[in-house]
């Protein structure tokens, strides 16, 4: 089969590799009909996530048709159309019982590697380094889905791929970011980063009843989508205005009730010197992540507010404004999305027409063109926001 393989920084190749086979009794093999490049894939593309190996198949947002099932998969059969959550979860351990699926205690065979870096290990994930299990990803013609009986969600007949696909990651992820804000009527939510997760965080904040949603980015097209499609009420282009001042002004001085960091470890800054400081330390391995958006979010949040961190961080940050965070009684909530928790409720919202997640798609390409898709998305060429690949 054809698959998008990681070969190093900025080196993705679509190659012929062996077809997957059932390795565990709870596996299913899925023939992929749609798959997407995720913003978090760019962290791998840009070489910021350790424990990648040449030949690793990329991709954790995919859906398709079941073509084979292991003997213990009773609730799926060949021919079912399914969308697959990016985090692999068994459904049996204490974390899964607590609905913290991205912390499944059984799905990462390489947990010991993650424990070295993070103390304890999160769940395994598709196509996201060996630290998270070394599972082949879904930017391919076929994928093996472990614990398919628990994770894979059947898609109703008649729902197009493009509406269901983002249940695999970015829609639930954006939703969880908004949910972590404990939104009350009248709340103002500020969202750093208007990539796909930021767009869904904005849309979800609106669904959850936020009064005012402020979108922050530096790309006019993304800010435009945030207002016209996702439902932001205000925008701040951080290259034009100082974010902190603008947020104070928009909120009468108190700051947003909750701030969502949908940017993560590869943030940019308005001022070249600010960016250079973190980029330099990152290059020297003095810190692994550039927490520019996170620092801003903490400083800007109102007293007693919530900072919801959904952007991906890999390792260590520097100059964390702990004084501001502690003295002003802020709360931080964070985590890889517990996708399985949100798939069904969000599927109903799509079915009811409350939201059509396909609004984020800007590019449709063939799987063969994946390398080009990565390049365009990384360079944000042609207003690229979301690339969907079809094998």
């Amino acid at each position: 089969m054809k698959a998008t393989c990681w070969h190093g920084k900025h080196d993705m190749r679509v190659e012929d590799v062996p077809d997957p086979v059932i390795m565990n009794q709870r596996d299913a093999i899925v023939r992929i009909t749609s798959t997407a490049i995720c913003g978090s894939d760019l962290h791998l593309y840009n070489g910021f996530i350790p424990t990648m190996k040449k030949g690793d198949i990329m991709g954790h947002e995919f859906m398709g048709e079941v073509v084979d099932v292991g003997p213990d998969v009773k609730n799926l059969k060949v021919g079912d159309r399914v969308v697959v959550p990016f985090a692999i979860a068994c459904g049996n351990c204490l974390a899964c019982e607590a609905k913290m699926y991205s912390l499944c205690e059984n799905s990462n065979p390489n947990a010991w590697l993650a424990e070295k870096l993070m103390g304890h290990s999160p769940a395994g994930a598709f196509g996201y380094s060996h630290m998270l299990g070394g599972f082949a990803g879904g930017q391919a013609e076929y994928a093996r889905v472990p614990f398919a009986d628990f994770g894979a969600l059947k898609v109703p007949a008649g729902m197009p791929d493009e509406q269901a696909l983002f249940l695999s990651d970015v829609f639930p992820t954006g939703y969880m970011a908004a949910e972590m804000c404990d939104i009350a009527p009248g709340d103002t939510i500020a969202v750093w980063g208007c990539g796909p997760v930021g767009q869904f965080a904005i849309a979800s904040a609106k669904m959850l009843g936020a009064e005012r949603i402020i979108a922050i980015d530096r790309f006019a097209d993304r800010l435009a989508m945030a207002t016209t499609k996702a439902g932001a009420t205000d925008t701040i282009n951080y290259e034009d205005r100082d974010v902190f001042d603008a947020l104070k002004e928009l909120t009468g001085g108190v700051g947003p009730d909750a701030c969502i960091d949908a940017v993560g470890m590869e943030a940019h800054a308005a001022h070249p010197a600010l960016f250079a400081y973190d980029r330099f330390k990152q290059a020297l391995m003095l810190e692994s992540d550039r927490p520019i958006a996170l620092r801003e979010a903490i400083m800007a949040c109102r007293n007693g507010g919530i900072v919801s961190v959904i952007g991906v961080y890999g390792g260590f940050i520097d100059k964390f404004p702990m004084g501001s965070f502690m003295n002003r009684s802020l709360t931080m909530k964070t985590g890889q999305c517990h996708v399985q928790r949100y798939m069904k409720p969000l599927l109903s919202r799509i079915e009811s027409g409350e939201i059509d997640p396909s609004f984020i798609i800007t590019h449709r390409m063939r799987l063969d063109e994946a390398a080009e898709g990565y390049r365009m998305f990384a360079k944000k060429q042609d207003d690229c926001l979301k690339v969907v690949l079809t094998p």
Partner: protein
Amino acid sequence: MQRTDNRLNGPSGDVAPEVMRRPRHPAQSGDRESLAMRDAGAQRLAHGLAWFSISLGLAQIVAPRLISRLVGGNGQYANLIRFYGFRELASGLMIFGQGHRPAAAVWSRVAGDAVDIATLAAAGASPRMKKGGVAWATAGVLGVTALDVYCARELSRERAGQNGIRMSRSVVVNRPPHELYAFWRTFENFPRFMYHVQSVRTTGPGVTHWVVNGPAGTTVEWDARITCDTPNERISWQTLEGADIESSGSVRFEPRPGNRGTIVRVDLEYRPPGGKAGKLAAMLFNESPEQQIYDDLHRFKQIVETGEIVRSDGSPEGIGDVRQRPGQPSGERAGAYGGTAASSAAPAD
């Protein structure tokens, strides 16, 4: 293949963990304690020597001419002294870098001392050096050399308590103690989650025969007997007289409060008797035995909780697979479920 291990055999009867930490023979215990104290002393000395190395090294690098005058010269040999300064600095840092027992790094200091003495001897013969300075410097180096040799020898001594390898690990499993006890009490289950155990057979009342993979395709066998069997709480075992590897162990099942599963604790102790078998045992255990118990316990957890050992393309054998292939299908059917030693058979229950 996978790392070897034998976890299961070992430890300490059925004594509580606090008691376990006490050596079995009172006569040995004094020895062990004093050995441990000597270890700590040698370590402190090594760190003192490291700081001395670093300070002297920096002085030599920054002010080589001053050092030259101190040892009876006239400011000459600055480059040589600076070079020796880097050497000092390196061995100082090496001592800190080597962890608890920096024996090799301290021996490298001894080698450095020899070079220093030879250099001073050569310098002493030079008419441009003041004999008095050289003599004092040589006396100083000889004193430090004595300390270095003492420290290096102490650190190279056999590790305290080396003839009893003890370890403990635990895992939380989301099942009540009685289920876990029942699974564990069926010793024939062991090869499913202990990758180094080929087979366990019950050969008599409370007696089992073990076949375990050794290094390089060898196998090691022994008989063990259950020394304590408290249903749903604890199982302890010990090898019978004459086993290649003398060992004892216990597994305990402690319910976590609030219905949060069970803590499964494994304590193991091995006493390689020496000779060939002892060496073999040491080889078996060289590769982080605690990691091996960790792997086994997590495989146990996976089987009991999910019914299988989770495999990925990078780790086709599941937990503990150190090969890490690329994350793409290998194209082999072998290695698929059911095909390997630790078969992912039906869930326990």
